[in-house]
């Protein structure tokens, strides 16, 4: 089934975004959009034109949305793009402060922002790189780790809303999970 992608232009709310109160207004629009999406669909927060936001704004908009994903909108992706060097630094610090991470799309490449541990980053990049979904067995071979570790790593990224999991059938006819990032 074709996955849907919705985009919210953050710049429409102004170039300088201050206060938790302001973020709360925008989060209502985000929640409405997420409700219209199904599992596997993507909401892109396009930060083009935004010069600055404070930490309270970032915590309320990005933090609360990310925290709500696993429970309220399971399987949906929330990613950010068109950050400037400054807004990226501030969003990253805000996410770090909350112990969260999220996907950033930058020049067609995907990477993680926030409190990113090297293992999660390695796993994320391994499944983001190929054009097709990856199984735990393939990840095991790619990163030279054992199968349990590969499964644990993939489960963690899936539960954090950073990877998509779908059912598939292996060449031997067995049911298996395949993992991808927005593919």
């Amino acid at each position, binding site marked *: 089934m074709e996955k849907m992608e919705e985009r919210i232009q953050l710049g429409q709310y102004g170039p300088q975004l201050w206060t938790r*109160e302001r973020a709360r207004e925008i989060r209502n629009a985000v929640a409405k959009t997420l409700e219209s999406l199904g599992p596997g669909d993507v909401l892109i927060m396009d930060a083009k034109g935004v010069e*600055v936001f404070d*930490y*309270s704004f970032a915590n309320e908009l990005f933090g609360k949305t990310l925290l709500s994903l696993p429970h309220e909108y399971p399987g949906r992706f929330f990613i950010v793009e068109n950050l400037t060097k400054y807004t990226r630094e501030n969003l990253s610090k*805000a996410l770090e*402060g*909350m112990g969260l991470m999220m996907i950033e799309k930058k020049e067609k490449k995907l990477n993680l922002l926030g409190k990113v541990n090297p293992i999660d980053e390695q796993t994320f990049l391994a499944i983001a790189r190929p054009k097709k979904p990856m199984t735990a067995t393939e990840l095991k071979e790619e990163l030279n780790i054992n199968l349990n570790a590969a499964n644990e790593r993939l489960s963690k990224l899936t539960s954090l809303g950073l990877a998509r999991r779908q059912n598939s059938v292996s060449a031997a006819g067995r049911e298996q999970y395949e993992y991808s990032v927005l593919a």
Partner: protein
Amino acid sequence: MITKLDSITFDTLLQEQDPFGSGKGRFDLKDVQLITPAALTQLAAAVHALSGDGLHPEIIIEQESVRTYLLRAGFIEILRAVAAVEPPISHIMSYDRLRGSNPMLIEVTRIETGSALPQLLDKIVWVLRHRLKYRKYDAFDVATGVSEICQNTFDHNRGTCGFLAMQVYGKGAKRFLEIGVADYGEGIMATLRRNPKNLDISTDVDAIREATKLGTSEHEDPTRGTGLYHLLEITYKHGGSIQIRSCGGKVRFRMDKKVGWTFVVPPMPGVQMAFTLPAKTRA
């Protein structure tokens, strides 16, 4: 004798005149020749707290230059309904039209919601860029810090409000800016202790120190409790200093000595901050 009322001598004033304990709510400023923005916002918060206790505070100001400054700084207007100035000042309206016209000053401004903040922050960004030679993103950093402390004044309090004022001092490389933000709410300790996790916080100084740590909040919410932590980071990054006062405790943080000096001070409701930043020198 206090001739300069700032965030330090304000405590001397409270100690000597005891406006909260005496039951009179009287502030004798007749020897004062200069009042800084932080002291102005503290005084505004103190007077509102006393008024909330059913008093009609009295502020004695005799120096004509100070009286004029207080008019110009919007202080008299903000106090009109809750306090008396002695001798009385009658020509308030002539200064109202000047509000916002001095680029080196933000008049004492009441903060009740976030809606007034963007305009104030824009002005702070402008002053930092054009008067203190801050680069655009450095100015945004500072505005971010100020935004966090201003939001605390209404986020954690009910039925009270906050005050903000700003003034640029000095010339050239010696120029600096002071921002005062004050409220008369319950203070940091009482606020933090609403969260059972923080019940072991037993002094105001400890509460201030805890509040500057990442994640300490009245709420069980990972998106809270980051404002003062980031504010300190910003203060250090830009070579500034900040004093955080809450009820009977005070901590001063300076970028060159990150530990922070602690003081026990005469009790006063709420949280009051004095934020000082130097001018930048650009090659």
